[in-house]
């Protein structure tokens, strides 16, 4: 009896069984077929992986050696020489081998191994074109890789590519493109500060900050005050105020003082902190006057800012709020401010230690113990 006949008789037999048994037989057969297919898939995945591992094992040390020779020695290579030597190692310069090469360069950059000859390798191997093809890929993973690799390799010739994705329907790609535009555009890197229509996530802030640092390295960091002034997006305003403090940008005192009246407590708190970062100490009395009417987040910012000003004028105020505060975490911050508030602060701290008892005394001891790194 042939297989087809057997199958037909089997199907005929199944039809005579109750419905539940019929379903069970069909599903069991489906599970067996699926398991076999999965086994083949596992085998294929492993085979591909083993082949890649073999390639990596053989070629990566050689590529590292070649790139180190080009980047970190005095030897001069022509673009053609670099291409030929790279081809000798990887056998064929294709997407896979270029990905390995880019990975090596990204590792060098992440290890802060500086050299002026990165553009030479990038040009010799056609890495810009390689990244362009990754931008054009249907895979989101490839696009994200391209955004990040272009940034790490300090390439900024992708205006049109990135701009295309800045209006993508995919929220994650759109967000990544808009953030990356700051680093990857040559024409108008700050374009999307005018168009921010979403709350910034913490990751957006981390990315934008590193792109701003890159702009600073390139000497293109613009004054951020105008966006603080005009933007209606509070999360962007908070971030930019923080960046003004971080990059110590001057000339925005008035904007910061204006932001002390903002309805959003996060904006006020960041403005207060930045006043401290920029050492705008003429606002000290204003901050003290506001202390009791502000929420906790702003109160903490005021204490930290007064500590930064370190004028010696507000010691009495700090002692007063230490006594008044009921929040242990805030008390720790105030005690730390007193301890680090000039020479008079140290004396006042000792006096407090002599007069206080119980848990308040423990807070003071906690703060002055150098072994406790994070108070």
């Amino acid at each position, binding site marked *: 009896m042939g297989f087809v006949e057997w199958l037909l008789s089997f199907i005929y037999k199944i039809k005579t069984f109750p419905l539940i048994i019929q379903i069970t037989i069909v599903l069991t057969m489906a599970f067996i077929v699926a398991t076999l297919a999965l086994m083949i898939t596992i085998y294929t995945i492993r085979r591909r992986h083993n082949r890649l591992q073999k390639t990596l094992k053989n070629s990566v040390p050689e590529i590292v050696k070649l790139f180190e020779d080009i980047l970190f020695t005095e030897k001069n290579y022509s673009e053609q020489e670099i291409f030929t030597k790279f081809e000798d190692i990887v056998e064929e310069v294709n997407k896979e081998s270029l990905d390995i090469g880019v990975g090596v360069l990204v590792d060098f950059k992440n290890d802060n191994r500086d050299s002026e000859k990165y553009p030479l390798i990038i040009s010799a191997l056609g890495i810009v074109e390689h990244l362009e093809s990754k931008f054009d890929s249907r895979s989101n993973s490839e696009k994200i890789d391209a955004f990040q690799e272009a940034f790490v390799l300090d390439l900024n010739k992708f205006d049109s590519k990135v701009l295309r994705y800045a209006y993508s329907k995919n929220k994650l790609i759109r967000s990544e493109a808009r953030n990356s535009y700051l680093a990857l555009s040559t024409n108008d890197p700050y374009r999307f500060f005018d168009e921010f229509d979403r709350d910034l996530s913490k990751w957006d802030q981390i990315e934008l900050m*590193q792109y701003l640092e890159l702009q600073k390295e390139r000497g293109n960091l613009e004054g951020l005050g105008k966006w603080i002034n005009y933007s209606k997006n509070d999360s962007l305003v908070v971030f930019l105020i923080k960046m003004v403090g971080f990059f110590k940008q001057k000339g925005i005192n008035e904007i910061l003082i204006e932001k002390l009246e903002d309805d959003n407590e996060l904006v006020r708190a960041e403005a207060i902190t930045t006043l401290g970062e920029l050492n705008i100490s003429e606002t000290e009395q204003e901050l003290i006057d506001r202390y009791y009417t502000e929420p906790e987040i702003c109160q903490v910012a005021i204490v930290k800012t007064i500590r930064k000003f370190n004028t010696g004028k507000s010691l009495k105020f700090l002692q007063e709020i230490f006594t008044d505060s009921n929040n242990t975490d805030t008390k720790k911050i105030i005690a730390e401010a007193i301890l680090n508030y000039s020479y008079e602060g140290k004396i006042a701290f000792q006096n407090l230690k002599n007069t206080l008892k119980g848990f308040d005394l423990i807070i003071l001891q906690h703060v002055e113990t150098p072994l406790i790194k*994070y108070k």
Partner: protein
Amino acid sequence: MFEIFVKIYEYFIFFYATSLILSYIVLAIFSFIAINKYKSYNTDIDDEELLASHLAPGISVIAPAYNEEKTIIVNVKSLLTLNYPLFEVIIVNDGSKDDTLKLLIEEFDLIEAPFAYVEKIKTKPYKRTFKSQNPKYDILTIIDKENGGTKADAFNAGLNASVFPYYLNTDVDCILARNTLTKMIKPILSSKTTVIAVGATLRMSNNCEIEEGIITRVRPPKALIPRFQELEYIRSYLLGKMGWELINSVPNVSGGLGMFDKDIAIKAGGYGADSHAEDMDMMTRMAAHMMNNRLDYKIGYIPLSCCWTEGPPNIQILGRQRTRWASGLFQMFSEHRKILFNPNYKRLGLITFPYIFIFEFLAPIIEAFGILFSIFLLFYGYVNWNFAPLILLYSYTFAIMISSIVIIWDQMTFKYYNTTREVLTLFLTAFIEPFIYHPMIMFFSLKGYFSYVTSRELAWGTMTRKGFDNEDDKKKKSDSNTGSNNDGGDSSGNAGGKKQSIFEKLKKGKSSNSDFEPIKT
């Protein structure tokens, strides 16, 4: 009449099994989408960006220790090697009776430090804090407290002492991957909705190579019991939790490895001090807190394996572990019973809790009843021998298929095993698992339920450790016969006291849930 009953029972079992199978298929599809999504939008360059950033938020790593003298030093060193710009390590010595504290003091050059410990969450009395005099270990804090009887109490003490806005809870017997913190904080940083917790996959460390507290080579366990558990963990995390993640319904984040928003954890009342399923209990409390306050939240999961823990090497220890887990699950459903099928709790009350209740909590009971009923039918000749093997084959082939899917998902995510042979070893384990491991788990689950109902004592979840051998760095010690600090039944040194019976608890009604925030309607 009896025949009608048998018929109804047969149909019930068929539809129960089929709905379970369907749910697994749906979860497999969900997890596939979730894993691909994760892989598309997360890269290793993200880690570098985060490590170099001034905006990386601080994380407190909290690990409770109870009688862990065999492994404490290696494991604390492992925690100290984590790669992240801003973190502290807090070890809570939960009144250990052995030399855990002494070893820590000697190894890390600790002295008692004045520490402003604020009891934001009530715990058994705090005794003192130790800090290292060696600048190399300046991020290490040891909290010494009286034994609270549960890991939950120790976690609460760690929470009280922590300073950063996020915390990672782990066990001191866990070896973490160096990039654990960068990988696990990413979903929190990327989301605009508040992410209250993030979990990752745990695996067995039993046959792995460990050097200076760092995993250098991953292998599936040689011994059968931990290998079964490896497969079970991968299935549970990659298929179950990753699948739930897609629809924001992750039921729990493992006590062995989870990152949480500290502020919300404290507002939710911390860990239930008497809870033996502290992880699911905590997750439920936090989710309930967010819903009560009409706040959006998300529970994240990443498909990477970040934590390796020593699996039970034999049936006895596996039994203790699973009995405690099952008892904890019963306790969890008993204490949070208001959530079950409660529409006010949205997905938690109508999807996650009912699913766990029907397919995890009730499964051992239904299975045990099925076995007894089958024996009865066998004696009375009611078994339909034409179809019975087919039904068995139906379940068996499905179990193997789902394990195969999980192994592929694992291979898709990250290829932890170096050789194809190691992958095949795990694959072959799937063929025998339904006959050997599954019945044991069912038995221990029932034992756990029984222990809970009859209020047997449950101890802190420590397990007899083999420890890691530093001398040859590659092999674990073969000596495992100490037995001084056991999981489950061995109550030596456990100040947990006798547990209330379920009947007493039910009698107390609402008051028994006093430390759990009820839903506001």
